[in-house]
């Protein structure tokens, strides 16, 4: 695997984010990274899909310039994508911010168009999270699931299928294992 090119795969920021040189981040000024987050190669983050409603004056446009907000210790695997969801509201189309809390893992090639993802969420590989889904804390989404638009996934759920449904509960003993600090430490240019 060509995981480690000569120059060093990751750029490390002041707050400890490790961002792959081969990630495809668009609209960087509209993305907030909480720190200690890993972004692997070929990850797309659409920071350019800003909220345009309510239509603001050019003067106070500074107010809502966050398209994607990400917390600490998140891990975005190779080829996944984060995309703010869009909808029609009062006859106006607008994108809305995508908010991700801490310790969120997103597997390879998964497409995320959620409105909100809580802490300690594990999203598998090749998952599609539909527009405006709300995922609460301690949720595991198994590989290949398609979470339908607008779905709310309560805490401690295991979710799978097309369309995804709750197929199980997170056991009490699994909670500590959803912490991503160890995973973060394991990533580097070594």
């Amino acid at each position, binding site marked *: 695997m060509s995981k480690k090119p000569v120059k060093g795969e990751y750029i490390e920021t002041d707050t400890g984010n490790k961002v792959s040189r*081969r990630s495809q981040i*668009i609209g960087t000024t509209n993305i907030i990274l909480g720190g200690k987050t890993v972004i692997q190669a070929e990850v*797309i983050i659409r920071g350019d*899909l800003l909220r345009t409603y309510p239509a603001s004056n050019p003067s106070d446009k500074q107010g809502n310039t966050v398209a994607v907000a990400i917390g600490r210790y998140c891990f975005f695997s190779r080829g996944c994508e984060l995309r703010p969801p869009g909808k*029609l509201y009062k006859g106006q189309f607008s*994108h809305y911010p995508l908010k991700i809390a801490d310790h969120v893992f997103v597997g390879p090639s998964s*497409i995320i168009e959620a409105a909100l993802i809580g802490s300690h969420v594990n999203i598998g590989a090749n998952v599609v999270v539909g527009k405006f889904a709300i995922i609460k804390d301690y949720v595991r989404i198994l590989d*290949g699931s398609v979470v339908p638009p607008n779905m709310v996934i309560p805490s401690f759920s295991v979710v799978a299928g*097309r369309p995804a449904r709750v197929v199980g509960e997170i056991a009490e003993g699994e909670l500590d294992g959803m912490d991503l600090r160890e995973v973060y430490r394991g990533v580097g240019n070594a």
Partner: protein
Amino acid sequence: MSSKRASTMPAPPKPPTSLASSLTIAEHASLTGTHLITLGSNTVVHPRAKFSSAHAPITVGSNCIICERSSIGFQSEASPNERQGVVIQNDVVIEVGAVVEAKTVGEGTVIEVQAKIGKGAVLGKHCKIGPQCEIVEGETVPDFTVVYGNGMRRLDNSGVEDLKLKMVARQIEVLKRLIPSNPAKFQ
């Protein structure tokens, strides 16, 4: 793969294009191949969308949205009755990571995230191909078909096509403001 790598290599020959003046096409979209690529008016092409006319031409109508990572165009030799290549009619939305090798995609159809449309398939009007669903090669999908789940199908009788078209139009208005267009790069 990575655009950086592509840019260091000698640029591949640009395919002949016919781009409408009101087209919005992001700089990081990729148009390759040798046949003609036609993109209609008011259509929006997101960054990292891929058009490949290596084997047959591509025609996209007006008011379409082509999202990132989607791949449009035949990936193998066209048979004699597929010479016209991929034809995407008006008001079509092709979502993230979809692979479209269809002969025809009917008006108002939505191809969802990571759906695959096999080579030479014909999609009717106002269809919706759900996320990760597949249409096999050469298949004909009638108008108003919804493909969802693990290949389940039904006909959509809700009769709200006009509203959906309105929504696509509104979405295009917004995207035009958000995505900087650079058609010059592809001409």
